[in-house]
């Protein structure tokens, strides 16, 4: 397979000359260029963000990512909330995948406060994180297919995702925002009959994913549009801070679950899914295999999870919990890459500063702006979805 960065018009004589910086001087009044706002109100955008595209014909000449439509100032709000009061709001940082926020926040705080989480709670946390990964991948795979014109996949996977949301509802009491992993532990053991229903759902997902493979991945049109398209050069991984499946599709086996194991991952049997070609197709395939691995991981967890036990460590009274001064960084592997919380405490009841590191921060701004240049306008949506970005975690 020829490894081209992008499929572009080979005949460059039609295009204006590049300047000394290797860019094209854009002069809108020359009528050759067109500026298009791709979002925020646009069906081809993931969430509430926008791309300011400069086009020449149907080729993107320049792109600027605009974020901030979802900015709520979490990092500021957390500074004026007690630690326990931060717990309900952290999950809102990343809407489609809230649990990684809860985990990173809780674990950073537990590290600073020196709290050991009970065994059962650790298992439940692992379970919830993997369930969250599963539902996020299912939502994503529908989005990736949809952005390239395959509506049917979304109809299936969103239904499958809903099954997982039902399990979430049973276990945590919430559908989207679970507010389950609070500092010190979790908020409930497995309900009765949970295992059977979960097993049933996982079987359904397995079955459906076979069809997804056939309809989406073994598909001439899909391959035609994605193979060799939107390649991330492995050399970009570190300069752009690329993590997660985006990096793994480029052959770099980066996975926090293996690199810096947390919770019960050391007791689970898995290998990071790695791809080779680093194009949209490979990234989609890496995520699909990752999804199947998650299904397998949940099965492993369900076999080991205890039915009884304490779910929360003894902590000071949360109404005036003072966390010893210090700073730490706690990370977890979410569907999009490395999720992290940098927490600074000054020894009071309120956090001094909490910084959220969402993987989309690097993927959706610097990387996307670079990748999208010279792409075809029709591929912008597919390319963007293939990076799997969630705007709320960029601006927080």
């Amino acid at each position, binding site marked *: 397979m020829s490894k081209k960065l992008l499929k572009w018009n080979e005949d460059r004589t039609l295009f204006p000359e590049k300047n000394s910086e290797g860019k094209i001087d854009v002069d809108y009044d020359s009528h050759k260029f067109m500026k298009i706002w791709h979002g925020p109100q646009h069906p081809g955008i993931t969430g509430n963000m926008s791309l300011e595209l400069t086009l020449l014909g149907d080729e993107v000449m320049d792109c600027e990512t605009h974020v901030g*439509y979802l900015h*709520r*100032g979490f990092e500021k709000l957390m500074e004026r909330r007690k630690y326990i009061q931060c717990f*309900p709001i952290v999950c809102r940082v990343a809407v489609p995948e809230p649990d990684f926020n809860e985990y990173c926040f809780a674990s950073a705080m537990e590290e600073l406060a020196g709290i050991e989480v009970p065994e059962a709670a650790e298992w439940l946390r692992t379970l919830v994180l993997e369930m969250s990964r599963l539902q996020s991948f299912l939502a994503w795979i529908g989005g990736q297919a949809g952005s390239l014109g395959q509506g049917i996949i979304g109809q299936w996977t*969103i239904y499958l995702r*809903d099954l997982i949301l039902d399990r979430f509802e049973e276990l945590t009491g919430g559908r*989207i*925002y679970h507010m389950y992993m609070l500092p010190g532990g979790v908020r409930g053991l497995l309900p009765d009959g949970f295992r059977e229903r979960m097993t049933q759902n996982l079987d359904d997902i397995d079955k459906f994913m076979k069809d997804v493979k056939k309809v989406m991945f073994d598909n001439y049109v899909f391959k035609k549009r994605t193979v060799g398209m939107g390649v991330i050069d492995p050399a970009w991984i570190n300069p752009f801070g690329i993590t997660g499946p985006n990096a793994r599709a480029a052959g770099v086996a980066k996975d926090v679950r293996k690199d810096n194991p947390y919770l019960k991952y050391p007791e689970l049997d898995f290998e990071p899914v790695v791809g080779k070609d680093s194009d949209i197709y490979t990234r989609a395939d890496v995520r699909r295999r990752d999804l199947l691995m998650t299904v397998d991981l949940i099965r492993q967890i369900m076999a080991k999870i205890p039915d009884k036990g304490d779910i929360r460590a003894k902590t000071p009274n949360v109404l005036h919990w003072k966390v010893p001064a210090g700073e730490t960084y706690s990370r977890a592997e979410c569907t999009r890459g490395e999720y992290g919380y940098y927490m600074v405490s000054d020894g009071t009841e309120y956090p001094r500063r909490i910084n959220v590191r969402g993987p989309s921060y690097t993927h959706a701004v610097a990387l996307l702006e670079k990748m999208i240049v010279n792409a075809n306008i029709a591929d912008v949506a597919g390319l963007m979805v293939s990076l799997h970005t969630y705007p709320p975690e960029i601006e927080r």
Partner: protein
Amino acid sequence: MGKEYIEKRTVISPEGNPIEVDPLKDYFCDAAPKSCKSASGIIEKFANWARSESLWVLGFGTGCGAIEMRPLMTPRFDAYRFGIQWRPTPRQASVFVISGYLSVKTLKRVVRSYEQMQNPKFVVALGSCTINGGMYWDSYNTINRLDHYMPVDVYIAGCMPRPEALLAGFDKLKHIIREGRGEGANKYAENFDWYKGNQKKIIKDWDMPDYNW
């Protein structure tokens, strides 16, 4: 950053003639909206029934609540059977679902999208955030009360509301429309100055005409 893009300027047309462009006047319409009289009697009743049974929702996910739109659009909850469907452009949409909190930056786009929608148009507000600020009540970047900036027909409590609650909200909206009370667009036109004043108070970077559909 300068705002040269809304200033008057001269450009050369492809034919080589200089043309004077005033973006705010030429690209937009700045006529204020007018309140529309409703038809009388049975015709209006029929129209209202038709409107209530074809709620076309603008696909603009403004906040968290947008995540529950996808289950609604897909087979599990299948809102299409209730005459609800999603449209990509404001021109085709009649219902604007404000899915939760609105940052000032988004509010600006929401106002523009809302104004681009055709009459009659309805607003459904999701979650605590639109009622009284919700969990971002003390944030410097999110509004507290949506009804200050645009007329709202139905509020749905929840953070975020479940798809089932959303369907209940649409159900309520249908009743309101059928009763002839879905007058949000007229209310907006009648109190245009008040709404505009509120909007301008918080949207500091106002680089568009007052009305732009």
